[in-house]
């Protein structure tokens, strides 16, 4: 019983430590507040700029998704259960943010990728055509601490992100992947009056073990069962049958820098962040009867991101505008080929505007407009595959908030959107078509060149009646995707995304 108590306390640590006496559910309920909350924890400068000094939540969430409108590297069905806590508190010269999340997920009918953490940019991974059930465990812990230095204006801060993930499945070929990930991001902040500016650096490390094994000898090493063949993907089309080369070690180092700025006055807030991160990944094979490994490839990924969140109270309304621009470019270096075989780039730009009346009535509304522009390019030089697609996704949002006399709150929100493909192309000479083309690339192109209708709907209710003197609430969220027109379908494609995809989640949260 003692150990259970210790475990319970450990899991609730962020929430328990940061608990405050006033209710905090409204900060999670109202979209603009929630958006701001999510933004301020990105850096020390933005955390310091916020007047949120104490806040905590803990929750449990169940999610399930299924549908045939997906890429070939996504599961037909999936479900996940996660428990998470997070909170903000202020202790003297310290202001702290902490988060913990444990997630267990199951995926069914997932094929053509055995990645531990799904990553579309990653060129090196094992894959097999046999669909199977996956189990994943994911632990994430993170935090951000700021400390006021002697004097009035200078602060130091440091962020910490830790992640441990395992993935496995019970169908041959059976991957077993363990990923450890740690990022540290110290920052120096200058804060004067309404403004805060911070400059930070980032350092990180990641280690991943990949091992693929078979239980049934008939499937092992031979080619009699094509769907059981384990491939090593090495780009966007370049691949080999992995055979006895069935394990690899991935090590990544991260470096980066960021600039953070915040301006806050009684009517206007502006928070921005400019960040750069470079991943330097090394992939190795263990050598036989040796303690050494042999490097066979590297992958470098540069990530440039700019974001802002501005809000203003004006003429009886609260306006909020959020923008995010992210650009990634990467390339591999394949030792066997003696050069760069794979190039990747993507950019996304998001704008999200919401307006909400400044009203104290029991019923309030919120309206929003949003748009996403996304482009992704992948080029494999040896396999002569070049994928380039762009889409834009405009949407609107309408939310109604209701406050009851007993202080219970209800939120109902609906956000329809449409994903429209823009200029896209996939170039592969017919002589270069291969198992990757037919099973992964062609279905992906069909998926991303489809016109898709998407509607997001959510209901959230918070109350003090479930747990005495503690605000708690439940939420139901659904995301439904339906192709309005099917994208380009190539002859030979083994999978055609169709029908629909539904993502449902149910959560219960307590707020301190």
């Amino acid at each position, binding site marked *: 019983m003692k150990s259970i108590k210790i475990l319970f306390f450990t899991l609730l640590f962020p929430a328990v430590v940061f608990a405050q006496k006033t209710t905090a559910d409204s900060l999670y309920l109202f979209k603009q507040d929630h958006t701001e909350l999510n933004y301020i924890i990105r850096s020390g400068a933005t955390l310091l700029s916020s007047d949120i000094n104490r806040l905590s939540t803990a929750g449990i969430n169940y999610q399930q998704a299924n549908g045939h409108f997906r890429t070939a590297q996504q599961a037909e069905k999936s479900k996940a259960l996660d428990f998470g806590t997070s909170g903000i508190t202020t202790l003297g010269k310290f202001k702290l943010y902490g988060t913990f999340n444990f997630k267990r997920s199951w995926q069914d009918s997932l094929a053509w990728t055995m990645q531990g953490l799904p990553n579309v940019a990653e060129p090196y991974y094992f894959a097999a055509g046999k669909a199977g059930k996956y189990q994943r465990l994911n632990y994430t812990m993170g935090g951000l601490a700021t400390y006021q230095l002697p004097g009035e204006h200078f602060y130091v801060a440091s962020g910490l992100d830790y992640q441990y993930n395992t993935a496995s499945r019970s169908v041959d070929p059976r991957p077993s992947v363990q990923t450890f990930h740690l990022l540290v991001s110290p920052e120096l902040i200058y804060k004067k009056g309404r403004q805060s500016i911070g400059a930070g650096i980032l350092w990180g490390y990641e280690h991943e073990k990949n091992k693929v094994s078979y239980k*049934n*000898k*008939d499937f*092992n*090493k*031979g*080619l*009699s069962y094509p769907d059981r063949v384990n491939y*090593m993907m*090495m780009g966007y089309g*370049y691949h*080999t*049958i*992995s*055979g*006895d*080369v069935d394990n690899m070690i991935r090590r990544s180092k991260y470096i980066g820098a960021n600039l953070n*700025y915040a*301006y806050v006055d009684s009517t206007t807030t*502006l928070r*921005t962040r*400019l960040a*750069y991160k470079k991943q330097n990944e090394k992939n190795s*094979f*263990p*050598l*036989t*009867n*040796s303690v*050494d490994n*042999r490097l*066979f490839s590297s992958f470098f990924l*540069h990530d*440039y991101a*700019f974001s*802002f969140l*501005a809000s203003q109270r004006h003429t009886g309304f609260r306006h909020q505008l959020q923008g995010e*621009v992210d*650009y990634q*470019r990467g*390339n591999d*270096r*394949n030792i*066997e*080929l*003696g*050069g*760069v*075989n794979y*190039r990747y*780039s993507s*950019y996304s730009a998001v704008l999200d505007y919401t307006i909400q009346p400044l009203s104290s009535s029991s019923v309030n509304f919120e309206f929003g407009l949003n748009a996403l522009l996304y482009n992704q390019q992948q080029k494999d*030089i*040896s396999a002569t595959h070049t994928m380039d697609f762009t889409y834009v996704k405009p949407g609107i949002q309408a939310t109604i908030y209701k406050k009851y006399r007993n202080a219970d709150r209800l939120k109902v929100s609906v956000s329809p959107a449409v994903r429209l493909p823009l200029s896209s192309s996939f170039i592969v000479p017919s002589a270069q078509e291969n198992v990757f083309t037919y099973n992964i690339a062609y279905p992906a192109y069909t998926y991303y060149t489809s016109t898709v209708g998407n509607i997001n709907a959510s209901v959230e209710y918070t109350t003090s009646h479930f747990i005495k003197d503690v605000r708690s609430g439940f939420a139901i969220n659904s995301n439904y995707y339906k192709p309005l027109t099917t994208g380009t379908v190539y002859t030979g494609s083994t999978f055609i995304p169709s029908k629909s995809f539904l993502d449902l989640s149910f959560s219960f949260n307590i707020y301190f």
Partner: protein
Amino acid sequence: MKYLSKLMIVATLVLGLASCKKDNNDDVKPVSLTLKVAFDAENAGYGFTYEKTTVKITNLTTNQTYNTTAAADGTATFASIAPGNYDMSATLAITAADFNAKTGANVQEDVTYNGTLIRQSIVGNSDLSLTLKTGRVGDFVIKQIYYSGSSASNGAIFRDQFFEIYNNSNATLYADSLYFAQVIGNNAVSTRIDQSQGFFQPSGQYDWAKSVNMTSANPNTAFIYAKNVFMIPGTGKQYPVEPGKSIIIAATAQNHQSPFVGADGKAITVKDPSLTVDLSKADFEVYLGDQTNINPLASDVNNPSVTNVTVIENNTNRDLILDNLGRDGLVIFKTTADPKTWPKFATPDDTQLTINTKVYIQVPNQYIIDGVGLQQTVVASRMPKRLPDVLDAGETYVPAGSYSSQSVVRKTSRTVGGRVVLKDTNNSSNDFGFLPKADPSKAATSFIN
């Protein structure tokens, strides 16, 4: 909002710079490969020309092959190939008449010269040399090897393995005192070998010169090292093999399609008899149930109607077990010497010899009549070549891999008066094909073109 404007400008500049087109000089580019083929010292003076030398290279990632023919000076050029690791081979067939005229010999069959280079890394324009050698053309040849076995769940796994020895000559031969052996080699995947350990040749194969107590000259090229050696018994002319006829040597001479009782008294069955073979009519079998130093498999049941081979060296094997992944090599040889008296060596990675150290008989190549190198089906799994080129210049494998019921089988070269002459150019890559299902019947169905 002026702050926002300024930050947007900064962000645009940064992202603009970041997205500038990068110099792609590091991108993989096609490369050229020039191979210069030349005869070895023994054959260089005969004056054979190179024009008909066929040169083949195989990419070990994509399995793509490129073929060309050498010029008169022996140069073969591949102008534009993808960089990567390649196996390379060259083959030149000299007609018997031309060979006899230039060497003064009196051969009846065409003579084939082979040369190979294994797992060469080609990442830039490259020039390489390839030496053409010829080996002994056997009268007895290994016709068929069924090493892959049948389904582990529905078939007989590996207990139904066998191989077939064929009289490829026009005279009756005697199998009496014909030895066969499995060749030891480094089974590690070539790309996973730690060369810094110091006991491997550049190819990744064991450097036998580094074996403890090795004193032989040319230990890597003049000998093979046998993990198991067996001999067909006989009085000298007890087991004749007529021209165009063969003998089957079974691991266990039972009808594997039907249940039989194992040595432990339990029934041994298969779920799907069609996957396996009937070896009850094999000519010889390897029976180890009477060996004192091993724990034989329960499936190794003696068939009294099939002659057992003589065990010369068994190295704790529990039956004749051919590696079902193809990590094996098979040779047949004849000698008047007693192989039991030949030197034995441990593999070079075994540096501390004890009473339990496995040692392997050093078999001189000069006695070897025929050798077939087997190899893994999956190119990424390929291990270093274990037979020297003079015994077998190229290896063979079944396309579906382990437990597939497939066998490798020597191709038919031609038919003379109803007698099938099998292809024997000392290069199993060229000489062998496969049967979708192993066939120990010796009938026409066991031959391929």
